Structure formats: C-alpha cells, structure tokens
C-alpha cells in the first residue's frame, strides 16, 4: 500500500508556528474542499469541516488535529543586527544551536549561532548553551539592515528536508501535520456516519483553538489525533519510553491534563485487536494535548486520543514509522464509525 507522502510532505513543509497557521490553513482548505459539505474558519482561525456519511450519526463526533507547530518568535533586534527570540511551545533549547531557520512571512533564512568551540572554556564545552546566549543571525551587518527584513513578533520555523526512507519518515512539524494528514485521509474516504473535522490552532501554547472549536461544534464525542513522544531510544529505560515506534498508534488512558473516556479507550484497543491492527497503550502519564480543553467543553465531551509515536517530537526533525501512520489511519476510520454509530446514553 502506498500512502500519500506527497501530501504529508507539503503539510510538514508549510510554516505554521502557533498563532501563525495561515499557510497550513490555506493548504488544508484547498485539500479538503472537494470532500466537505461545508467548511468554516472560526474567529481564532480553526478550520471546521462537515462531512456527511451514509447515515446520520447517533453520536455527534468531532475529530481534531492541530495545525500549529512549535517554533520561535523574534523579540528584539540587537544593535549588531542579530535577533533575540522566545520559544513558542515546548521546544528543548538544546536542539537550537547550529540550526537553520526561516523568519517571518517573507521566510528570511537565518541560523542559530553559538560561540566557536575554539573559544570555549572546558566547562562551557560540556554544558548546553545558556538560553540567554542564543540568537538568530540572518546575515545583517547592522541593526538597520536586520530591521528592513524582520520585526519583533515575526515567527521562525526550523528548516528540514522531508525524508521517507527505510520505513520511517523524518521532517519538522510531524507534530501534528501527521494528524492533519490522517484526518484529511479519512475525509477522502466514504464515511458511514456524519462527522465533523476540526483543524485547530495554538495547541502548542495552551489549546485556545480547540477550546473554541469544541464550543462551536458542540460534539458529544471527540477523537484527538496527534503525535506523541516515543522515547524508545538508547539510554532511556523501558519504563520511561512512553511508546515505541513500530508498535502502532498509541491510545491514552490518561495524560497530564486529561483522564480519557474509559469505554472509548477500551473500544480503541479492542477494535485494533479484533481487526489485527497494531496498536499500543501509551505507557506513561505525560504530555497533554487538545483533549484537555475538548473534554471539558460545555457540558463535557467524551474524548479519546489516538497518537502517532514520534521520536524527537519538538526538534527540527521528528521520526515516525510509516507502518504506524498506516495503522493509525485504519484504526481511526473504524473507531470513528463505532463511536458515531452508537446512540449516546445521555
């Protein structure tokens, strides 16, 4: 089976730091246009798309994936023409030194520079670069030259080539363009029951998008589709790996902000088992996502999360398994059908 990596590649290449999701939104609107009965953009920028199935849903289901990615925001232009910045979302500053970035709407190239190794004291060599020493260099030689190209508030995104090789994918922003691609994939299929698809903004900075999208849609149930930390890497013991690449999508029973609907959690695992789809429980209470605000929207929304295991989640190049992506697509389709097909008990 050949999945459409071309779409995922374009989604990952689109630049969309939290609050600046325009490029991603345009791409998604264009892509889903032919498959949705109706699409709307909410005041904060969420895309909400309605798709009819063969039958009316017994449970009004919203599937959600977030459009935004972690990145940087320029805070000040220094006298030397360098850019100071803040992290937008949970970036580990350890991965910044030496990276290429694109700054602002005009995508001005730059780099995150550090002191050369030849001029470091021994203890500096071993320590991570202090956050206050980091800056971006766009090649400006003066403050004026920099200010003509960028302004405080401009976002900066990582640059990284999309790679599909050896059964894995690596790219920036797989969290959560992989989720967006899975939702779009589902929209392109024939659905048994009506469903609402929400592509949300600002997940990485507190889920203001999902909060307002859930209010607008008013669903009975929700499936949050995201990418989650896979720490199955050398030096992390088995108990702290959260989930593993190649073992299928991870289903959460609980994270730092949400206790998931127990029945749906069981349903997801059981469905996968019955259909022979690889699937794993997320084996740690870590992270949080749009579910945190969706499940407490209005009078409450029964919520489940299906996550794609992703190594190096908030770094310039995440790594996911192509097999896990396919399995997540299959599981989502079945889960949506089972949830939407059943009448709500209350």
């Amino acid at each position: 089976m050949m999945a459409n990596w071309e779409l995922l590649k374009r989604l990952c290449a689109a630049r969309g730091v939290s609050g600046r999701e325009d490029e991603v939104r345009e791409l998604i609107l264009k892509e889903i246009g032919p498959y949705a009965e109706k699409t709307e953009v909410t005041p904060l920028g969420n895309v909400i798309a309605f798709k009819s199935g063969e039958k009316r849903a017994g449970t009004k289901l919203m599937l959600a994936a977030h459009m935004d990615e972690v990145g940087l925001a320029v805070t000040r232009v220094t006298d030397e023409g360098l850019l100071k910045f803040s992290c937008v979302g949970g970036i580990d500053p350890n991965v910044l030194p030496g990276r290429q970035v694109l700054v602002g709407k005009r995508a001005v190239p730059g780099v995150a520079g550090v002191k050369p190794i030849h001029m470091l004291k021994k203890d500096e060599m071993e320590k991570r670069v202090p956050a206050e020493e980091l800056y971006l260099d766009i090649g400006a030689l003066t403050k004026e030259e920099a200010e003509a190209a960028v302004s405080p508030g401009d976002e900066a995104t990582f640059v990284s080539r999309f790679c599909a090789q050896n059964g894995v994918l690596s790219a920036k922003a797989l969290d959560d363009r992989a989720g967006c691609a899975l939702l779009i994939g589902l929209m392109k299929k024939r659905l048994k029951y009506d469903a609402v698809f929400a592509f949300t903004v600002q997940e990485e900075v507190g889920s203001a998008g999902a909060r307002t999208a859930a209010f607008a849609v008013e669903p009975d149930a929700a499936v949050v589709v995201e990418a989650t930390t896979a720490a199955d890497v050398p030096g992390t013991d088995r108990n702290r790996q959260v989930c593993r690449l190649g073992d299928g999508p991870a289903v959460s029973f609980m994270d730092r902000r949400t206790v998931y609907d127990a029945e749906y959690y069981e349903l997801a695992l059981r469905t996968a088992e019955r259909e022979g789809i690889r699937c794993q429980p997320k084996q740690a209470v870590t992270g949080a996502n749009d579910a945190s605000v969706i499940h407490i929207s209005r009078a409450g929304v029964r919520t489940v999360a299906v996550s794609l295991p992703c190594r190096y989640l908030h770094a310039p190049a995440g790594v996911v398994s192509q097999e896990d992506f396919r399995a997540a697509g299959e599981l989502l389709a079945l889960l949506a059908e089972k949830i939407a097909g059943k009448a709500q008990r209350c």
Partner: protein
Amino acid sequence: MEELKQMLFRLCEADGVSGDESDAAAAAAKEFPPSAEPETDRLGNLTASVGPKNAKTVLLDAHLDQIGLIVTGIDKNGFLHVDKCGGMDRRVMPGAAVVVLGRERVDGVIGSVPPHLAGADAEKVPEPDRMTVDIGCSRKEAEGLVRPGDRIVFRAQPRALLGTRVTAPGLDDRASVAALIRCAQLLAEKPPRCRVLFQFSTREEVGGQGAVTGSYRADPAQGIAVDVSFARQPGVEPEKCGELGGGPMVGFAPILDRALGERLVRLAEKNGIPYSREVMGGETGTNGDAIAVTRSGVPTATVSIPLRYMHTPAEVVDLRDIENTAKLLAAYLLEAE
C-alpha cells in the same frame, strides 16, 4: 558575486569529512580547466597549477576536509554509535538531521533525550561518543546500509542570507577552496611569472597530514595557507577577530614569514582591498604551521577568511571576503618572480 556563490555552493554540497575527501576533491577538480592538470596524490590531496613549469613554485593551500562524525558501531536496535571526526562541537549535535554516507546516502537524526526525561543531566550535553544516530532501521537492515568507518555530515543546504552573506556546513574550509579557484580564474586572464601550485589538502581537521606530505612533494619556495578564521560575533573577544565583510585577515605569528605578511598588507593597501592583521602568539592552527617546516623550511604566510560559528553546521561568511582574498592572492602572485 552570483557566480562565486554558485561555485561555493557546489563545493559545499560535496561531502568531504576528514580522511574521506574524494567527493570534495572531485567537485574542486571540476572547477579547473584540463590545462591546470588537476590530479590527486597518495593521501588524497588535489593539486592544480598555473604558470611556467620551470619557475619557482609558490604553494597556495586550502584544506578540502570538513568536520563530521564517524560511525563506530551499530547497537542491537539499529541505532548507530558514532564519534567525532575533527573538532565537532557537541552542543550542536542533539536533534540534528544528518546524512550517513553509507553504501547509499542514509538520512538520520542525532538522538536527543527530551528534557523531562533527562533528569539530573539536563544541563550537560553528552560527549559525541555517548550520542547515537537514528536511521529508523533494525540492526539487520542497518548493517546492510552502514559500516563502521562511514562518515556522517549534517543535513543542511547552503543558503544565501541577507546581502552577500551565506551559510552552509563546511564553509571551513570550502570558502578558501572557492577563493583559490577564484584566484586561478583571475590568473587565467593575466598569467603569473612564477609557478602557482594550488593544493587542496586532506585531513587538516585531524592533524594536517595532507599538507605535510603534499608540501614535501611540492617543494615550494614560498607558501600561503588560506583558511578561515574568527569573525566578530557575540561572546568572543573582538581583538581575536576579523569582521564579516572586513576583508582577508593577514597572519602574523612567530612561525610565519614577517616580510611576506608585510608584503601582502602593502599589496592590499595598494589595491584598495580591505584587510585586517591577525596576530597569533604561537602557532597559527592552520596548515601554515606544517608548510613552514617542510623540508629545510619554507617562508610562509596565512590569509584567512572571517567566519562566524566555526565548527557548527551554521557557519557564515561574506562572499566579498572570498572575492577579496582571491584578489589579494592574485596581486601577490603577479608580483612574485
């Protein structure tokens, strides 16, 4: 400047980690006409020459190699164990996208432990040989693609920044390789009376062995080592630096020939080429140190291109400094007998 940029980018896109410089050598050789007789020697150094064959030889050296990583093993889950190859700055490694130069080019990512899992070591960056490269393969698959000894480079494309500044991994020392090629182009218009031997030497980042044997073979009357040096940037002492756009840095150090240095300075002033004096108390840390003590000794100078963020994948130079370095070298060679 556009042509120079394109040439520099072609050079930077070739891989050439220390001891494995053949791609970089091939890319540089392509920039010379057959009349310059580009050839490779036993240790992989590339040479090309212009000017009369029986005249005395002026050696211009720039090193071909760049820093990188080297695969040392494959673990039971297919992750690659690595070590540094040259003076790698470990702080730029976590999370970096890389290409493993195995049986084929294999994309990988250097592992980083998420901060919430790093615990007490969160402030430390592990040593390069404690980090691993993830190519997404099982051990068996990995063994079919990669062998210990394969080199690894950063997965970053050369890019134009504002003005005439550019960034690319390996500008140390491809910027100087480009300057030498540009110098050869200038000399094609106006041939020198001396014989100019362009030497693109190997293994500078691991000890300069290429320059040692290459310079012996060249047996030059004079030598100029062209390399990159520090450009002013935050956190470094300004007196140890040149400046982006400030022109070539002419070296003065005990090991170097003072008269040769002064002559370069005089020529820069005469030709209106911006320059700065780079004073070093001991050795120069360039191939100049090896060239100077070749055979019974060679009067040697260094000319350096200012560069920011040395030994990271984010190195930055100003194209004008490359062009001005080429001009200064050409002016010198046209005067040399």
